[in-house]
C-alpha cells in the first residue's frame, strides 16, 4: 500500500500532470469566486476538455478543480454575503458580519486554513478507509438516512431566532418549496400550478423539475443582504481601514480552535460518506455543532470567527468522504462527485469495486491530487485574502450593479430558464420580508435541502422495516438519541434568545405588515393542501402534512401577533430601527433596482439590458463620472462574454431575440 501511495505521488509531481492539476486549481479558484457557480458547474465545463486526455492528467485536472471550489467560494460569502457555491452557505452567517466589522481578512484566512485542514483530513481518511469502508456505508439503511435527515431538521432549533412558530413556518416553507416537482413516491407532478395553468405552460414545465438548489440559496441569502446594503449606501465594512495583519490573526484563530476544526472535519467526512443525504446539509450541521459545542455563543450570527471555522472545515472535508462511495460503488455522495464520476467514465476509468481491487494506483492518484490541490489552493487564497478584502471598503453602490449582473446571470444559468429568474425573485422577495420580520432563512434553506431526503426515506423505511426491526438497529437508536439531544439544546438556545430579545426590547414599528405576512404564510399552507388534494396517497401525504403544520403554526402566530403586548418577542420589524435614520432609501427601492434589469431584459434580452443597467445605475444612483460609466459598461459586457464563452452559458433572451436573429452574444 505504501509503495503504491508513493509511486502515485511521483507519477503526479514528476510528469505533465502537475501542470494540469494547477490548471484545474486555477479554474476552480475562479469558478468558486464567481457567485453562484460551484464545483458541479465547473466540472461540467471541464468535461469536453477532459475527454480524450491521458487519464492521470485528466484526473489531476478534475480533482484540482473540485478540491479548491469549496475553498475559494468563501471569498464572496465573507466579502459580500453571497455564497460562491452551495458549500459556503453557512459561512455567510458569521463571515459576512465579520467583514462588516472590518475583519474580512481575518475571517478569510481562518476559513482557508480550516478548509485546508478539512481537505487534508478528507484525503487521509479516504486513504485509510477506502478498502474497508464497504460495511460502514452499507450499515446506513433508509431508516438511518431518515434519522440523519430528521437530525438535520432538528438543528433548525439551534439556529432559529426567539420565536418557535416563526422558525417552524420557515422550515415548512422550505419543505414545501423542496417538494415542488416530481414526487418520489408516486412519480406525479406536484405544486406546479397545473391546477390553473395548462400542463405545457412554461411555468408548469419549469416547476415540474423542481427549483434548483442554487436558485434558492442565492435568492434567500444574497438578495436581502444586497437590498439592505443598497439602502444604507455605504461600504460593506463599517471601518474605513481594514485591520492590519488580518491573515495572521485568522491563522491564530484556526490554531486556537483546533479541536473544533478536527470535530467538524470529521463530521464533514463522515456525513459525506453516506450517500443519499447530500452534501448540502453538512455545512449547517457543523455550523450548529460549532454553535452548540462552544462556550459564549451569543455572538454567533453576529460575527463569531468560530461560526466560520466550523462549516469551512467540514465543507472541504466532505469531498474526501463523498469520494468513498463514488469510487467504491459508483454511487456519488454529492453533486460535485456525480459529475466527477461522469468525467472518470469519459477518461475510461470506471469507478466501482473493480477499480479499488485492480487499479489502486489510480485511486491514490485521485487522493494525492485532492491533497496537493488543497494545499496549493489554500496558499493562493491566503495570499489573495488581504488585497481582495479591500473590496469591502469601496462604497457598495458602486459594486452593486456588477454584483447584480453576475448574480442574475448565475441564476439564469442554473437551468437556463426564465423560470429560474422569476422564482428567484419571488423567493428573494419573501426572504427580504423574512429578514425584516425575523423569520429564520436558515430554517427555510435546511427544510429545502432535506425535503426530498425526509420524504423518500420515510416512505421507503415504512415499506422496508417493521417498528421492531428498526429498534433492533443500533445506529438507528444512536441517531434518535442524537436528535433528542439536538432538540433539547435547540430549546435551550431559543430560551436564551428569548431572554436576550426581551432585554433589548424591540421598538414597535407597526403591527399590520407583520400580520399580513403571517397571513400570506397561512395561505401558502392552504394552497399546498388544496393543490395536492387530487394526487395519489403517496404523492400527497408529505406535502399535506407539512401544509397542515404550516397552517397551524401561522394561525397561532397570527393570534400571537394580534394579541401580543407591545415589546413581545413575536413582534419584530427591522424597519423600526431604520425610520429615523437619514439618507436611507425607501424599503422597496432597492428591490425595484433588482427587478429593473430583468424587466428590460424581457424586451431586449439579458445581455444588452444588463449593460444598460450598469451604465444607468452607476450614472444615476452611484453618480459616477460618465467616462467611468462607459468603461464599466464595456467591461461588464466583456466579462460576461468571456464567462459565457468558456463556461458554455447562455444569456436570457428577450422578445427582441424571438423576432430577429442576432449574432452572439446578443442572441
Amino acid at each position: 500500500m505504501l509503495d503504491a501511495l508513493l509511486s502515485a505521488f511521483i507519477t503526479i509531481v514528476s510528469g505533465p500532470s502537475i501542470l494540469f492539476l494547477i490548471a484545474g486549481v486555477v479554474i476552480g479558484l475562479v469558478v468558486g469566486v464567481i457567485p453562484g457557480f460551484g464545483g458541479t458547474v465547473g466540472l461540467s465545463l471541464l468535461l469536453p476538455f477532459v475527454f480524450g486526455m491521458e487519464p492521470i492528467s485528466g484526473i489531476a485536472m478534475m480533482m484540482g478543480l473540485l478540491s479548491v471550489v469549496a475553498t475559494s467560494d468563501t471569498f464572496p460569502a465573507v466579502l459580500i454575503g453571497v455564497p460562491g457555491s452551495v458549500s459556503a452557505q453557512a459561512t455567510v452567517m458569521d463571515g459576512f458580519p465579520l467583514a462588516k466589522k472590518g475583519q474580512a481578512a481575518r475571517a478569510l484566512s481562518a476559513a482557508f486554513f480550516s478548509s485546508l485542514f478539512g481537505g487534508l483530513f478528507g484525503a487521509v481518511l479516504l486513504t485509510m478507509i477506502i478498502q474497508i469502508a464497504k460495511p460502514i456505508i452499507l450499515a446506513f439503511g433508509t431508516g438511518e438516512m431518515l434519522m440523519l435527515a430528521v437530525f438535520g431538521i432538528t438543528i433548525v432549533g439551534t439556529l432559529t431566532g426567539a420565536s418557535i412558530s416563526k422558525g417552524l413556518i420557515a422550515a415548512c416553507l422550505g419543505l414545501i418549496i423542496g417538494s415542488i416537482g416530481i414526487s418520489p413516491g408516486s412519480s406525479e407532478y406536484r405544486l406546479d400550478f397545473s391546477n390553473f395553468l395548462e400542463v405545457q405552460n412554461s411555468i408548469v414545465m419549469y416547476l415540474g423539475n423542481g427549483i434548483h438548489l442554487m436558485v434558492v440559496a442565492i435568492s434567500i441569502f444574497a438578495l436581502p443582504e444586497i437590498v439592505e446594503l443598497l439602502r444604507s449606501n455605504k461600504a460593506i465594512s463599517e471601518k474605513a481601514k481594514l485591520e492590519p495583519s488580518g491573515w495572521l490573526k485568522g491563522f491564530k484563530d484556526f490554531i486556537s480552535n483546533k479541536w473544533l476544526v478536527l470535530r467538524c472535519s470529521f463530521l464533514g467526512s463522515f456525513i459525506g460518506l453516506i450517500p443519499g443525504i447530500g452534501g448540502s446539509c453538512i455545512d449547517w450541521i457543523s455550523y450548529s455543532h460549532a454553535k452548540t459545542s462552544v462556550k459564549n455563543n451569543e455572538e454567533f450570527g453576529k460575527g463569531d470567527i468560530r461560526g466560520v471555522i466550523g462549516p469551512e472545515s467540514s465543507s472541504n472535508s466532505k469531498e474526501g468522504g463523498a469520494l468513498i462511495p463514488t469510487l467504491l460503488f459508483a454511487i456519488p455522495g454529492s453533486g460535485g462527485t456525480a459529475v466527477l464520476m461522469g468525467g472518470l467514465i469519459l477518461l475510461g476509468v470506471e469507478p466501482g469495486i473493480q477499480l479499488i481491487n485492480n487499479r489502486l494506483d489510480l485511486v491514490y492518484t485521485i487522493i494525492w491530487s485532492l491533497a496537493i490541490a488543497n494545499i496549493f489552493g489554500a496558499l493562493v487564497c491566503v495570499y489573495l485574502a488581504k488585497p481582495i478584502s479591500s473590496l469591502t471598503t469601496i462604497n457598495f453602490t458602486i459594486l452593486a450593479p456588477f454584483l447584480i449582473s453576475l448574480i442574475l446571470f448565475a441564476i439564469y444559468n442554473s437551468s437556463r430558464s426564465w423560470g429560474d429568474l422569476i422564482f428567484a425573485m419571488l423567493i428573494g422577495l419573501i426572504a427580504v420580508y423574512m429578514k425584516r420580520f425575523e423569520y429564520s432563512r436558515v430554517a427555510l434553506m435546511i427544510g429545502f435541502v432535506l425535503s426530498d431526503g425526509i420524504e423518500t426515506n420515510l416512505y421507503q423505511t415504512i415499506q422496508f422495516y417493521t417498528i421492531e426491526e428498526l429498534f433492533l438497529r443500533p445506529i438507528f437508536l444512536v441517531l434518535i438519541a442524537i436528535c433528542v439531544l439536538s432538540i433539547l439544546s435547540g430549546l435551550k438556545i431559543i430560551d436564551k434568545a428569548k431572554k436576550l430579545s426581551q432585554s433589548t426590547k424591540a421598538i414597535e414599528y407597526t403591527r399590520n405588515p407583520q400580520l399580513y405576512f403571517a397571513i400570506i404564510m397561512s395561505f401558502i399552507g392552504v394552497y399546498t393542501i388544496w393543490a395536492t388534494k387530487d394526487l395519489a396517497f403517496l404523492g400527497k401525504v408529505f406535502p399535506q402534512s407539512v401544509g397542515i403544520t404550516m397552517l397551524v403554526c401561522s394561525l397561532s402566530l397570527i393570534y400571537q401577533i394580534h394579541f401580543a403586548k407591545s415589546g413581545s418577542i413575536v413582534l419584530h420589524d427591522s424597519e423600526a430601527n431604520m425610520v429615523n435614520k437619514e439618507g436611507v432609501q425607501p424599503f422597496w427601492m432597492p428591490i425595484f433596482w433588482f427587478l429593473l434589469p430583468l424587466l428590460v431584459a424581457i424586451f431586449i434580452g439579458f445581455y444588452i439590458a444588463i449593460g444598460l443597467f450598469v451604465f444607468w445605475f452607476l450614472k444615476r444612483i452611484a453618480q459616477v463620472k460618465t467616462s467611468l460609466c462607459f468603461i464599466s459598461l464595456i467591461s461588464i459586457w466583456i466579462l460576461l462574454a468571456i464567462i459565457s464563452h468558456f463556461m458554455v452559458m447562455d444569456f436570457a433572451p428577450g422578445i427582441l431575440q424571438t423576432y430577429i436573429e442576432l449574432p452572439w452574444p446578443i442572441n
Partner: protein
Amino acid sequence: MFKKMIAVLSALFLSASAALSVDYSGKTVTIWVPFKAGGGTDAVARALTGPLSANLPGNPSVVVKNVTEGGGIGSVNTYVAKHGKDKDGLVVLATSGSTQLPFLFKDKRVRYDYKKFVAVHGAGTGGVVYVRSDLGIKDIIKDFDKLKGKKLLYGSQGISSLDAVPALAFDMLGLPVKIVYGMKGRKGGRAAIMRGETTIDYQTSSSYKKHIKPLVDKGEMVPLMTWGVQKGNKIVRDPNFPNLPCFTEVYEKVTGKKPGGEEFQAWSAMFAAGFTTQKFLVLPKGTKNSVIKTWQKAAEGIVADKAAMKVLNKKLGTYPHYIGNKDLKVALKNASTMKGSTYKYLSNWLASKK
C-alpha cells in the same frame, strides 16, 4: 439499355453531387443532449464527438450542449421549437429511453412527435435481473416456486420510467414483487439491494458487468435472467450473457404458454423503446435529404471505427448499432409506436401501479 445507363449515371451523379454539396468545414456541429453532463446519454454523445468530426465532410468541430431546462421532456420540446425546421443538420438531438417512454405513455408534457424525427444512428443495450444470494435461489426456472415464496422487494425510480419494464415482467411471470419507489436512478436500486433492503433488482448490461459481476463472483448476488435481445420478430438470449435465459424463455418455461396478448405487446413496445434502441441521434424531418445521407454515412463510418466502438461498447455493452436508412426507419418506428388497444392496456396497468 442506353436509357437505363443514363438513368443510372444521372442518379449516381445526383447522389454524388448531393453528398458533395454538404460541407461542414469551418462549422460547429452541436449534439443537443437533453440531460445533465456526465450522465449515460451525455457520455455516449461525448464519445461520439471525435468520431463524428472525423467522419463528417469538412471535419467540423463537434460539441455537446447539455440543455436541461424543463428536464428530459422539456429539453426535447425546446429542441423542436428551436430547431424543428432546420434543414442543415447543424444541431442533432441525442435521445434516450427517457425521451421515448414518455412519448409512448402519451405524457401530457410531450410536445414533440417522435415520428417527425429522422434517425441517423441508433444503439441499444440490455439488462440483467439478479437477486441476493441469501434467498437461496440458483436458477430461476428450476427454483421458480421457491422464488415465489420469498420476500421479494424491488427498488424502483418510479413506474413511468424504464422501471416499467421489470415491473410488467414480474407481473407477467406472476412473481409477487413489492415495488418500492423513490430510488435515485438505477444506482439507488443497486445501493438498496447491496444494503439488503431489497432482494431483487436489475441493472443494464454495462452496469451489471462493472458493479454486480464482482459481487456474483464473491457469492453475494445471483443472476437470474436477461431481458434478451430482439432478433427479427423474436426475443432471444443476450449474446453478452449466453448462459442466462432470457425473459421470454423463462416465461414459456414457467407458465407453459408462449408470450402473447396485450400485456406482452405492451412489454415489447417498452422493451424496444427502453433497451433495443435506447439511444438515437435524430434530425428534424424537414432536414435536406443530402444532409440526412451525409449523417447516416458518417454514422456508418463510426460503426466501422474500432476505437470509437470500443468506447461505445463499454458504455452500452456489445449490442447491434442501427445504421442505414432502412434499418433506422424500422427501429425508430418500433421504439415510438404502439397500437391503441395496447396503449389502453398499458395505461390501465400503469394506473394500477401508482
